[in-house]
């Protein structure tokens, strides 16, 4: 089998690329010994396929130990790889509240802006809301990188190991920094520097990075006796300096051998130079809002202050570069290493290019040392293009594609990259950021498209995400929140979703009905109850079935099942088994409730009860009540015809009451009429004969006739 995967046992499939030569075949282990006769393939939960394999019926049934078939689940795509399914669900759960809150604020704001005729709902509060939303989501994607500072700082550990960063969080932070933070972003370059410091390790997998260089050097560091003799030491420091990891560079400089006490005296000038560079690095002016704890550099919030400090700092570097001390420095590596670091700080384009590995690193170094005043996406975009040319890579990381899309100010590309790289969750939630503040993007995303069935791109992506949620048994309850934010198609899809849910278990059924109640979908909820009723009825849980049909006020089905119930009533309603019926009859409850044909059961129960009392000898009220019940039973249309004769036969004792006739003339006439009707009905072919003695009809007729005569005499 060409191209068969070696890990076929895991059942993971890879996407079929169009350029692949022919289809790739993956063997599927179903574990059946006998030959397969039939295959059935259907969707299972989420992204899984359910493949049912049926074995051909084996010839000798005697030793049929093997199962007749197996069901195999095949997971398609194999998930994100970085984030497990269960983790995705946690993100899914957590993002519900921020999303719902933002939607309700949006609705309130649009209501308000309509009233005050204010064209833009984006006031100062709105930016705060968006930022709050973005921070909430960001918090879900992983904790803020908090490298737990060890109590004893290991001087040899250059790189701190924090929480493993994820591309998803990196992507969200990018979006947040470009879209959610106020657009007046003179601090954006520095934000990007921080971003790269946090997520540089993500690119190490496919490509060498400054981070991977540092990690490698860290490993070697243990074995190095004289660190400054190793050219790698200087190379790594230049690289780290180029991307602005000042604290790491200063820490590494202090590992320089000239700091050791025994050498300090004869390497005084050398040590002075190292320290001078270290001080210069730690004094680097940076235009940013606030400094992270432990980071080096001097912060400036306003541009004029920064420019002044920047010029001064550059002058100091120049002065050091041209100083005479370099000739007194005996150690060649130190001399060259330090001077190349100075070149990095002076913004020598060639130095920056050799010091960095990845184009984004080069990009950052340009922002830091050549164009610290870069403002506006357009100039950033052209810079990025230049860097890509210098450091071309074969395959671009999904984050890189996203950055290019953002810098290129192309909302559609950003959306496409979000969707391709990070899935429907990302798109559905990132839309909130993308639509904020940019009228163009908002118009693009809210415009209704005829080819999408009249919905907007925003709605489309929300619907896609809702579909993903709907396909999993643990997340479908969240889907309504996203569906209801879709104006055009949302409600219809919500109705379909709710109607599709299984009804087997009460807990799920109630959760489903609860959602119907929240969104006032009474029709759907009564449909669900009908389905549940019929399901329970079919599975022998008659009480549950009747309850749900009653809840759904489904007279039609109640009447139908009543007919079936009566079959068993006729046979089993003896005094012993009556206790079983008692509960059901109670459930049927009062007349006000929909009971359909089951109303008969209640009256029949009353009749049986009083008849029992008559037989027990309690005659006073019992006879009267029994007659009442009998007449009422015979009068109501819900009493099935086949019960007429058994009822009359049961009440022979009443008809033949010794002391006086219990039924008056009109009552007797009613019963006689019914008897007549019954005789006529017996001629029809579909008539079901009650299991009674053959003389039953005659004895009832005789008793009625006698009673009639006595009643007439009495009156």
């Amino acid at each position: 089998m060409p191209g068969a995967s070696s890990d076929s046992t895991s059942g993971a499939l890879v996407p079929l690329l169009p350029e692949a030569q022919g289809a790739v075949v993956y063997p599927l282990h179903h574990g059946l010994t006998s030959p397969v006769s039939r295959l059935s393939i259907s969707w299972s939960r989420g992204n899984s396929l359910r493949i049912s394999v049926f074995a051909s019926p084996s010839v000798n049934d005697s030793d049929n130990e093997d199962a007749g078939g197996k069901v195999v689940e095949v997971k398609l795509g194999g998930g994100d790889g970085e984030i497990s399914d269960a983790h995705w669900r946690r993100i899914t759960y957590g993002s519900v509240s921020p999303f719902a809150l933002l939607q309700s604020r949006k609705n309130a704001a649009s209501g308000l802006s309509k009233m005050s005729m204010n064209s833009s709902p984006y006031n100062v509060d709105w930016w705060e809301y968006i930022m709050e939303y973005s921070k909430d989501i960001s918090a879900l994607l992983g904790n803020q990188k908090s490298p737990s500072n060890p109590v004893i700082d290991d001087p040899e550990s250059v790189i701190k190991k924090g929480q493993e960063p994820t591309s998803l969080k990196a992507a969200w932070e990018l979006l947040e920094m470009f879209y959610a933070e106020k657009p007046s972003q003179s601090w954006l370059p520095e934000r990007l520097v921080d971003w790269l410091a946090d997520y540089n390790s993500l690119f190490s997998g496919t490509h060498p990075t400054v981070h991977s260089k540092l990690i490698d050097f860290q490993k070697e560091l243990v074995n190095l006796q004289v660190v400054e003799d190793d050219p790698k030491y200087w190379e790594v420091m230049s690289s780290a300096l180029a991307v602005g990891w000042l604290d790491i560079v200063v820490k590494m400089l202090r590992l320089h051998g000239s700091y050791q006490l025994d050498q300090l005296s004869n390497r005084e000038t050398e040590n002075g130079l190292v320290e001078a560079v270290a001080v210069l690095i730690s004094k680097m002016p940076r235009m940013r809002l606030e400094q992270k704890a432990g980071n080096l550099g001097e912060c400036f919030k306003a541009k004029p202050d920064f420019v002044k400090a920047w010029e001064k700092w550059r002058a100091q570097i120049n002065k050091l570069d041209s100083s005479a001390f370099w000739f007194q420095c005996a150690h060649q590596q130190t001399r060259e290493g330090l001077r190349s670091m100075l070149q990095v700080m002076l913004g020598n384009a060639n130095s920056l290019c050799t010091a960095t590995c990845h184009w984004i690193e080069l990009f950052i170094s340009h922002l830091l040392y050549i164009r610290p005043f870069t403002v506006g996406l357009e100039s950033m975009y052209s810079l990025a293009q230049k860097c890509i040319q210098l450091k071309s890579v074969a395959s671009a990381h999904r984050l890189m594609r996203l950055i290019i899309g953002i810098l290129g100010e192309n909302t559609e590309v950003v959306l496409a990259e979000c969707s391709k790289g990070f899935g429907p969750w990302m798109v559905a939630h990132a839309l909130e950021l993308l639509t904020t503040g940019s009228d163009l993007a908002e118009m693009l995303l809210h415009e209704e498209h005829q080819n999408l069935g009249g919905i907007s791109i925003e709605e489309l992506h929300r619907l896609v995400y809702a579909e993903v949620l709907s396909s999993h048994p643990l997340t479908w309850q969240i889907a309504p929140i996203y569906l209801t934010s879709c104006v055009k198609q949302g409600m219809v899809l919500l109705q379909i979703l709710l109607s599709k849910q299984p009804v087997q278990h009460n807990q799920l059924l109630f959760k489903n009905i609860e959602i119907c109640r929240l969104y006032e979908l009474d029709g759907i909820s009564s449909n669900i109850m009908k389905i549940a009723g019929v399901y329970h009825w079919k599975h022998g849980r008659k009480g549950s079935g009747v309850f749900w049909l009653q809840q759904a006020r489904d007279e039609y089905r109640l009447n139908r099942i009543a007919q079936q119930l009566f079959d068993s009533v006729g046979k089993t309603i003896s005094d012993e088994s009556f206790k079983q019926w008692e509960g059901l009859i109670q459930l049927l409850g009062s007349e006000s409730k929909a009971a359909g044909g089951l109303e008969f059961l209640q009256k029949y129960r009353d009749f049986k009860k009083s008849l029992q009392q008559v037989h027990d000898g309690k005659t006073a009220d019992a006879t009267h009540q029994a007659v009442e019940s009998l007449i009422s039973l015979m009068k109501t249309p819900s009493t099935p015809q086949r019960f007429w004769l058994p009822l009359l036969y049961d009440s022979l004792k009443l008809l033949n009451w010794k002391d006086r006739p219990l039924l008056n003339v009109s009552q007797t006439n009613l019963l006689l009429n019914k008897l007549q009707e019954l005789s006529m009905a017996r001629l029809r072919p579909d008539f079901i004969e009650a299991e009674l003695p053959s003389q039953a009809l005659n004895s009832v007729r005789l008793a009625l006739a006698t009673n009639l005569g006595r009643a007439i005499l009495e009156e």
Partner: protein
Amino acid sequence: MAISAPQNPSQVHRFPQFKYIDAVRWLPPVSAFDRFAAIAFFDSDSNSPSIEIHCVNSNLQSSFPTLTSQSSWAPPSRISSLKTAHSTPQPVIAAATFSGSLHILASDLINGGMIESGGTLSELGFHSGPVAAVDLREGGTECVSVGEDGRINLVSFVGDSSNLSYRRIFDANGLVGYTAVKWASPSEFVTGGYGFGLQWWDQRRPGGPVSQFKGNWCQGKTSGIVHSIDIHPSRKHTCLAGGSSGTVFAWDLRAQQQPIVLAGAGTGEAAMSLLSESEVWEVQYDRYTRSSNISNISSTRILPVMICSEDGILAVVEQGEEPIELLADPCAINSFDINQQNPSDVICSLEWESIAILTRS
């Protein structure tokens, strides 16, 4: 309706899991700092259910307790009902499944909390369809199980609980379904079901329920199902039930057909506190009385009740008083359990695959 906040805010700790939680129960403690809980999980990725013993370790140094799994046991199907009981030497766990089987487990909490499977009842005649609810008798020698199939079984286990036998108390042949059950005394128990109906059973008077509470008291209004029942050991004549549409009511056997409605629909009174309109999944008497002793409360008054609901509310309801909300979550709270030994501790299972532990101060 304003819902008053608790005077003393309680500490809530959430423990996100990567599995759905079907049920949670406390187990009796073995030391001052360790509390144990039995949790029924369902891993939807691998489609496998499990019952695990978890240790809740409240470290004195950090205010954040930890939840660590001690041992795990795999039932044949998802757990529909889980109950625990004090028993010597080991606590007993009764677990009923959706496939209609019942499992009695024992856990040696002192030596690592290993779960030992005591006995299993899974024969065809036991229940048809899922077991809706079980309850263990105090002391853990008998267990009553009910189902929507209308069967009520009494499971007795002797000695090391490996020997299970059951007796059919009643079979309604599906004409009536039972969804909740609770022991009232060694020989009496109460079942609940559709239409808010309750039935009182006495083993000494077999053949049918001794007393029935007609479900149709909320006439004309939507009816529902009883999801959970509780009976206070000192008030055996009152049976507490919670169910659909936020309904919490008590049935006093001495006032046969008049329910005492604590919360929810069907009351017709606008003044009645409407805590929640959705399903009340579980009710338990809240033994955490702050100042007043139980004996001071008149016997006609219903003791404080804790409820959890589909709309994510965990609250304490007291007759004639405003409910006190302990938790309000964006997702459903499916079950909870109050620690019998230390009633300030409450453990809850949340719909979004997490567990919350509440410590009231």
